[in-house]
């Protein structure tokens, strides 16, 4: 499996490490590449959209010509895991002119819906298809507002969706790459696996 981490800004190293760990648990040889230029996404089997600043990431992937490649990747039905800023960038509508949303996940999002950094939190969150709750880290996290037809809500906090699946894309408000739990990577990249429990 060739995994590409969109690496223009954000917690790229954490994502690279997390996808390596997830693949290793499935005995899947993984080549992980970090992507700052166009031309690499088309060779990738799966993509990861890190956390960071959505305004910055959106601007840079647009300028470098990576944005359209990500859209093509999703159109081809290839998997993506997007977290926090990654979710915002992938959404249909970030309700903010400063973010040029890719529209590959049919949701609208509210940026920083859970407040500023002093409101950031970690908690155990129940996730559909997972038996045990997921230890989720929310950092100036967005919430999902409007969920389109065909989008599956995987988790909510106080009634607001925080994890969804839209076709090949799994997107979360929180940061599975900051913990050692690979179950959301499994949902995104190994959906038929029995490792998910």
């Amino acid at each position: 499996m060739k995994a590409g981490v969109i690496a223009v800004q954000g917690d790229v190293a954490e994502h690279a490490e997390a996808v390596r760990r997830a693949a290793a648990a499935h005995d899947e040889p993984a080549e992980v590449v970090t992507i700052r230029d166009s031309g690499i996404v088309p060779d990738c089997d799966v993509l990861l959209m890190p956390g960071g600043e959505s305004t910055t990431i959106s601007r840079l992937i647009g300028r470098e010509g990576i944005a359209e490649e990500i859209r093509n990747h999703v159109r081809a039905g290839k998997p993506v895991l997007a977290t926090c800023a990654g979710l915002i960038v992938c959404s249909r509508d970030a309700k903010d002119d400063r973010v040029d949303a890719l529209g590959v996940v049919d949701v609208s999002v509210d940026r920083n819906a859970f407040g500023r950094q002093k409101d950031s939190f970690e908690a155990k969150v129940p996730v559909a298809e997972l038996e045990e709750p997921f230890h989720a880290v929310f950092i100036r996290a967005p919430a999902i507002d409007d969920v389109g037809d065909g989008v599956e809500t995987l988790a909510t906090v106080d009634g607001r969706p925080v994890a969804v699946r839209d076709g090949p894309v799994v997107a979360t408000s929180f940061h599975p790459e900051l913990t050692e739990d690979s179950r959301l990577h499994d949902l995104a990249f190994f959906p038929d696996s029995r490792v998910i429990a």
Partner: protein
Amino acid sequence: MPEVTDLEELRQGTELVKRGFARMQKGGVIMDVVDREQARIAEDAGAVAVMVLENVPADIRKRGGVARMPDPERVPEVIDEVSIPVMGKSRIGHRKEAEILEALGVDMIDESEVLTPATTRTTLTSATSPRRSCVAPGTSPKPSDGSARARP
């Protein structure tokens, strides 16, 4: 702030949450700004965060002044202006400045050696103050740098 009520083991101000925030800034530019107009320019230019300053600390110190935290009235203006994180510097060891910055809603506090040190004896730790904002701990100043003179 939305009330979070239905979660197991909800925790705030933890090491994971604080360090996680710092990790999200990687690979980005944090711009020094002194007012909301500069903050707007920084965000439009693609900065990942802004650092609010009273003025250029080196200039203040060169004039023999005390370089402090930013004006508490200026910080909320910058917070209103931009959607990216807002950071502030506190003097080394100055717990009250750090607490004020946290109360104002600053996302990260830089306990900074470029400001005039408030003490040569101690630095802030996340165990004492503040509770939820990130603190990038300062480097203890050497007693020989004359900072005792500038103590508040």
